[in-house]
């Protein structure tokens, strides 16, 4: 009764590599990825080639592009081009760190809430509470407590994001933990932390990537809004958000101060979201099927 002849399985060396290749076949992922890579390269290398973004030159303030610097100067006579270049780093750092922290914490809490019945109500009620505290209040409170730094802004943006990630992860866990292979692992005597890491966590990856790209984009926007409200990143540090919020009074007079960082920000947020949508389309088998 042996049946040694297996159907010829496609030669697959590594599942992950093929996944990436599969994802890159999606046009959104490809082009969004290209744009993001360019921006990241610009952010890393750019600052070495531009003037000091904080150097003031008040006499030369509000000069249009061309006459003083590629993108003109702002109200303190700082070079908008070098601020935008340096801002790329800050904005990407804000976007990435908010996404990473929110996802990491949300994942941790979501796994626990979803898998351990006792913790569910407690964690979810706490999350409800967190969600009702506006980011602006947090930002100002944190800034007054520990001074305005990149970190306070990141924390202020992260905290309201966490409950949303927790909800998402929890909903995935609730369905996954009913899967027979999780029950099989329980039957095999696997301990809870291992089950979570080995069998539950991988299922949350696809929706989390999408959520993370969304958070990454919206964090960069929120950062600029905090700047607008006067509770953003310290003005000494250039970020796209605070360049725009500082330049907003000059919106009609010297639009370039807002225009250049605005275009960069829009492009980045767009690219990040396009990649996120693309990843969802390729990672979610049901949607991927429809897209074929």
């Amino acid at each position: 009764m042996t049946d040694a002849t297996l159907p010829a399985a496609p030669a697959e060396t590594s599942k992950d590599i093929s996944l990436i290749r599969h994802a890159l076949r999606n046009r959104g992922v490809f082009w969004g990825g290209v744009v993001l890579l360019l921006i990241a390269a610009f952010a890393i290398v750019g600052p070495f080639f531009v003037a000091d973004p904080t150097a003031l030159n008040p006499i030369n303030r509000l000069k249009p592009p061309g006459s003083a610097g590629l993108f003109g100067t702002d109200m303190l006579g700082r070079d908008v081009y070098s601020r935008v270049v340096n801002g790329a780093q800050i904005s990407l750092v804000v976007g990435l760190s908010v996404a990473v922290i929110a996802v990491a914490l949300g994942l941790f809490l979501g796994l626990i809430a979803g898998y351990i019945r006792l913790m569910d109500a407690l964690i979810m009620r706490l999350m409800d509470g967190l969600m009702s505290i506006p980011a602006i209040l947090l930002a100002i409170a944190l800034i007054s407590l520990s001074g305005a730094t990149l970190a306070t802004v990141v924390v202020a943006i992260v905290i309201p994001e966490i409950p949303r990630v927790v909800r998402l992860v929890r909903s995935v866990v609730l369905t996954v933990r009913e899967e027979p292979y999780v029950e099989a692992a329980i039957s095999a005597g696997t301990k809870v932390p291992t089950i979570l890491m080995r069998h539950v966590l991988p299922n949350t990856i696809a929706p989390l990537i999408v959520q993370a790209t969304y958070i990454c984009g919206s964090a960069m926007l929120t950062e600029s809004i905090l700047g607008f409200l006067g509770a953003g990143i310290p003005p000494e540090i250039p970020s796209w958000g605070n360049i725009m919020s500082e330049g907003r009074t000059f919106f009609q007079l010297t639009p370039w101060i807002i225009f250049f960082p605005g275009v960069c920000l829009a492009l980045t947020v767009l690219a990040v979201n396009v990649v996120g949508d693309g990843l969802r389309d390729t990672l979610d088998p049901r949607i991927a099927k429809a897209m074929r």
Partner: protein
Amino acid sequence: ETTLRVIPHADLKNLDPIWTTAYITRNHGYMIYDTLFAMNENFEPQPQMVDTWETSEDGLTWTFVLRDGLTFHDGAPVTATDVVASLERWGKRDGMGQQLFANTASLEAQDDKTVVLTLANDYGLVLESIGKISSNVPFIMPARVAATDPFEQITDFTGSGPFVFQADEWVPGSTVVYTKFDDYVPREEPVSAASGGKVAKVDKVVWTYFPDQTTAMNALMAGEVDFFEQPANDLAPLLEANPDITVEVNDPLGNIGFARFNHLLPPFDNADVRRAAIMAMKQEDYMAAAVGDPKFWKTCYSVFPCGTPLDNDVGSEVIAKGDIDAAKAALAETGYDGTPVVIMQPTDIPILSAFSLVTAEKLRNVGFEVDVQAMDWSTLTSRRASRDPVADGGWNMFHTWWIGADVIDPMAIAFSGNPDAGWFGWAEDAALEEARAAFAVAGSEDEKKQVAQTVQDRLWSIGASGQLGQFFNPVAYRSNVKGLIKSPVQFFWNISIE
């Protein structure tokens, strides 16, 4: 019915001009209250509610007789009792008021219309005090209202001024409505700053606060409002480009930019270090960065606003230099040990934010270690009260500005040299305090000028504060608005809409 639609410079958060010093509340006070004396264009106190007054031979007894026809909005006549109660409440909160009462033996209502002030000793600033133009202004309220604890807010907004406050239409954060007070009897004299005949020429004044400058400007250009009290200087070119809009400077004194050191903490506990810092403060850079168009600012090296009687240049070389190299040399001599300078930067106030950044750059160039800490203005106001070391929440520097009227003479708290009663930063200089005391009793104008020069000399030689220039906020209004009054404070009487 004519309505004047105004964008005020700030949100009217509360209504008690004695309880708070907020300028917007002061402006509100001028709408609904009247004062005994009022400052004219030349900063001389003129009678306003007072009809006649006389001073005794020894200068200690002052008798004031109220004008006829003064009535409160509720119809009750204004009496001497109301005046006494109002001045007493004011005297418990206002700095000049406290000084006046410190020198006063008694303040009494002799009859319905006569108030008698008896000084305990010689004091030269009686009319300057009760005719004070800026916060806190000794507004006259009904005695029952003035009976409120000065540290508690009043809840009854009955005044005797040219406009009536509409309490039920007040939306804090947004709208304040005033209507013309029909029974107000203006003086005969022509209007001159706060003094003269306060004639309400519109039926209604509506203040709508705009949190956003760009929107405020657009609303004015689109004709949705008539008057914009304090557009950002940088918006002036756009507003000027519109033929229907006039942009002009209405306040002859303007504002004085101010960099304040903490005299208690190193490195600024050393006068030489402070002077080295001041040497680097080139006013042109501050003004260009924060104000922009040179039309709206000028350099001013007198501690008293340029263009006012006490303006002088004694000891000003230190600030007039604006020279990094000189500052470097001066700092080198002090043996500065690299203690970081903590500058508090209020990010919600653009001008002060810009000042902070300019100072930071200059100090760095001079050789200071600088730590700029961004925060909101509220945090700054409470943190600046801390005398603790930096590690425990202290500070080394912050920036602010004074409206010219507030630093017009040596009595201003900004110039205090007494660290116990003085202003944040707590400068200490006995000679300075002596000179300020002398000013209070100085008789003649010349004597006053003399004392003022001494005060200024002391201020510069101890490097009390840095001075960043004199700048002017324009007002912008549509061409159908007529009759603006030149004054450091915005008044809405005498203005008509055509």
